């Protein structure tokens, strides 16, 4: 009960803070629209409407990863700047229970972008996305958000030793957009890219959302996205323990 409450309150508090930041709200909504607009222009050139529907959903989910990658990469550095990292580490709750809802909230803010991109595609480009299976869609979206938030959690932990971790998170924005198949079918990539794509939860998340919206069987994709998300969390928890132990031993928590 305490754990569930901690996760809920942590997520809610972080959502409130992010919602006050124009970087996370205004830019988070507007920035993916530029990429979506370019993609819509590019796919609109053909006669077949399917690629446009494909691109519309992909561009919509791009915003979720965009909202997560940079922010999650630098989330621990931000706590360090605010002077709250030591307090959070010293709290009796496990640090992972504090960090995980933070990164999931970052991914959740991306839903603004998802909605605005679908709306933009409909209003400006006339892309009418009909949701084939509303129930599956309503499950696929939060599953994708949670799994992307979990990937952000892993990034946050992995980059804890880097002072400019946000730049590393920022660097990963395009590669994940690319190899997760948001706008490009995975079949276009060289064979060695596919295992990387399969190891990324966003790949399964966007497949689940497309399956739910355009027809298909999204349930396996939803399960894979959640399973990968759980895997990221498990690895992240192990890394947290090692990292915090090392930081406490060397007294480097605030000095990275």
């Amino acid at each position: 009960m305490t754990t569930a409450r901690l996760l809920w309150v942590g997520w809610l508090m972080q959502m409130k803070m992010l919602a006050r930041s124009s970087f996370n709200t205004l830019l988070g909504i507007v920035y993916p629209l530029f990429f979506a607009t370019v993609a819509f222009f590019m796919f609109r050139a053909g006669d077949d409407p399917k690629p446009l529907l494909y691109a519309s959903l992909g561009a919509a989910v791009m915003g979720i990863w965009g909202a997560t990658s940079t922010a999650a990469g630098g989330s621990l550095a931000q706590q360090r700047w605010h002077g709250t990292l030591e307090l959070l580490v010293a709290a009796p709750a496990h640090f992972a229970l504090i960090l995980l809802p933070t990164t999931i909230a970052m991914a959740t803010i991306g839903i603004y972008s998802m909605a605005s991109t679908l709306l933009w595609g409909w209003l400006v480009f006339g892309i009418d996305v009909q949701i084939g299976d509303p129930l599956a869609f309503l499950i696929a979206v939060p599953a994708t958000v949670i799994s992307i938030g979990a990937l952000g959690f892993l990034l946050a932990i992995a980059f804890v030793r880097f002072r400019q971790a946000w730049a590393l998170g920022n660097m990963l924005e395009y590669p994940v957009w690319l190899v997760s198949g948001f706008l490009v079918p995975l079949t276009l990539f060289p064979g060695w890219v596919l295992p990387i794509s399969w190891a990324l939860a966003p790949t399964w998340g966007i497949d689940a959302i497309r399956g739910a919206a355009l027809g298909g069987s999204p349930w396996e994709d939803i399960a894979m996205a959640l399973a990968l998300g759980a895997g990221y969390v498990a690895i992240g928890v192990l890394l947290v323990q090692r990292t915090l132990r090392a930081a406490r031993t060397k007294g480097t928590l605030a000095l990275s």
Partner: protein
Amino acid sequence: MTSARVFFFGGIASYRALFGWLSPWVFIPSLLVAPVFQILLFVYIGRSAQLESDEFYVIGNAIQYAAIPCLFAMTHLIAGERFQQTLGYILITPARRLPLFLGRALPVVVNGFFVAAFSLVVGGAIVGMQVPASAWGPIALATAVSAFSCTGLGLVNAGLGFVVRETSVLSNIIFGLLLVFTGANVPVDQLPRWMQIVSEGMPFTHGIEAVRRLADGGALADVWGLIGLEALIGVVYGAGGYALIRAMEVVGRRHATLERA
């Protein structure tokens, strides 16, 4: 002589100070790795959409990515100084403003050129772009003029930094507009008419077109007009940005709002 010193040494000192923040841990991921992946993203979207050649997207995105160093570094001219609480000290000096601000723009042009050139060479090598060896010199010229032109827009951005608190949001939005309007990924003639008109007045539009023609074997003489237009756009934005900075400085002094935004 004093103005020349302010121009060169002030510019270099400012740029070195910027690199105090823009360390390799920021420079390499943000300005060397990210543009290559932006190029690959649009190359693959282009292959999927079967719209244009790989070369089209490599050139468009490599040149357009110069916007990141040009816009953000110029914004740093005002917002960064304000954040470090040094803006007042700079504006209280008797130094002439033209060499003071233009001196800070020169290293930004060089950096923007480097980022675009690196992206062009590496992105082109990855996708196997073939460019005649004789074309690289003129391409470098067109790329440098494009970086100059965008730095002019960066000066406007710096002027807006007097009144806009979230300058990074503003810079990102301008970057996005350049991505859509300049023909980096969608041929300008396939954009709606009003967007074509807007694109004519934006940095990069003519520079990107010039580089594409040069890469296709065109002669420098054939693209002088495009390069000249690109330079003219840079001069107009630069002059407008300088005028905006001076106007905002006056407003800031009058209302004591230099540190407020």
